[in-house]
């Protein structure tokens, strides 16, 4: 066990955790950021996506003790226009993958405000939706600015 110091959504946190604990587990179980989901827990599905210094990464295979940058979770994107865009496009079915989808999409539109369909498909390929709402996710991202 040792201390972990993290910046999450602009606030500093410290937690006491065993080395080897994933960032996803720490966020959810120690810090209460339960918007980050754990689905496959092996780096395949993208449900656990968070940003570190603005870059989407998989928190389920990131070791909490190995994080050096600033973390943004779905809770930090509460006021992002993408949230309303996902609602408007009805891009949510069961909703379990949605936090990861929005975190990835937020990084995409920050770098590329008007992404083409191909850019969306390329940059969103790491977020799997088993309900198959991909066409509506694409639509939400295309219309994110309303």
């Amino acid at each position, binding site marked *: 066990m040792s201390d972990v110091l993290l910046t999450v959504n602009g606030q500093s946190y410290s937690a006491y955790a065993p080395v*080897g604990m994933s960032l996803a587990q720490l966020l959810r179980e120690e810090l209460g950021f339960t918007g980050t989901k754990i689905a496959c827990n092996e780096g395949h599905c993208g449900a656990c996506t968070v940003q570190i210094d603005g870059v989407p990464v998989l928190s389920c*295979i990131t*070791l909490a003790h190995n994080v050096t940058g600033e973390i943004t979770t779905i809770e930090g994107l509460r006021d992002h226009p993408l949230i309303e865009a996902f609602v408007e496009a009805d891009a949510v079915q069961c909703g379990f993958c949605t936090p990861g989808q929005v975190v990835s999409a937020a990084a995409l539109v920050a770098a590329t405000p008007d992404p083409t369909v191909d850019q969306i498909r390329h940059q969103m390929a790491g977020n799997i939706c088993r309900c198959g709402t991909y066409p509506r996710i694409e639509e939400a991202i295309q219309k994110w600015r309303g």
Partner: protein
Amino acid sequence: MELVRATSLEQVDGGIAIHGGTEVVPLLRDGILQTEKLVDIRGVIPRGVAGNRIGAGTTLAELEVDPQVPDALREACRLAASPQLRNMGSIGGNLLQSTRCWYWRLKYPCHLHGGDRCHAREGEHREHAIFANDYCASAHPSDVAAALLALGTRVHTTQRELALEDLYRLPTVEERELVTLAPGELILELELPPVDASVYLKAMDRKRWAFPQVGVAAARVGGETRIALAGVAPVPWLLDGVDGLDAATPLPRTAWKVEVARALVRRAVTSVAAK
């Protein structure tokens, strides 16, 4: 377990080195890797592209958009894994990744795990090797390694300089390790000789975020074309010319891979001839 953040290469003595963690963390969790000490090497491994040299700590995401990088490597990075994994994973780590053989990943006591048989040869091997598969039929999953192999890459480590093909060896009863790095030896940089044209083509079971069923890289220097394949042998495979596939030894359910590889090789060679 402890985690040490290395600030000099001398500090990397013992334990398991971790960079992006996309391979090490799942293998630790599954108990395939075991250690009391992890060494975070991000602070000591070169990162970025300078001319024809690539720092081993450069991520695949950085490489897929870098115009200095030859086409084959850029395309191999772009077609590899998922955006998040490309953001995390370093090119050095990518070269050291383990097979996706389901028996190996599920810890069957196979040849690579120190056992006395290859379960894939007798069992499910649809995704497995079509070359050098008599002892272990696993397929090497690195798109990037195939691209770098075709490009004639030299590897600079903390101890030596070697051709990329010498980083790998086929497993035998005496030596089951597929990588020739000594304990504690780290890949620092990759050096890419200039080529006139290159390409990477990949067959996968969906259009994005899949390991290669067959990946084909071709690089042309003058009239000479080097061809290397991913997903066809336990190590990245340098093909002996366009007819090299005649020497394939597919298992009963991998013959289809030979035909896919033939088609991709034909396309790749045509592509670099025209560039």
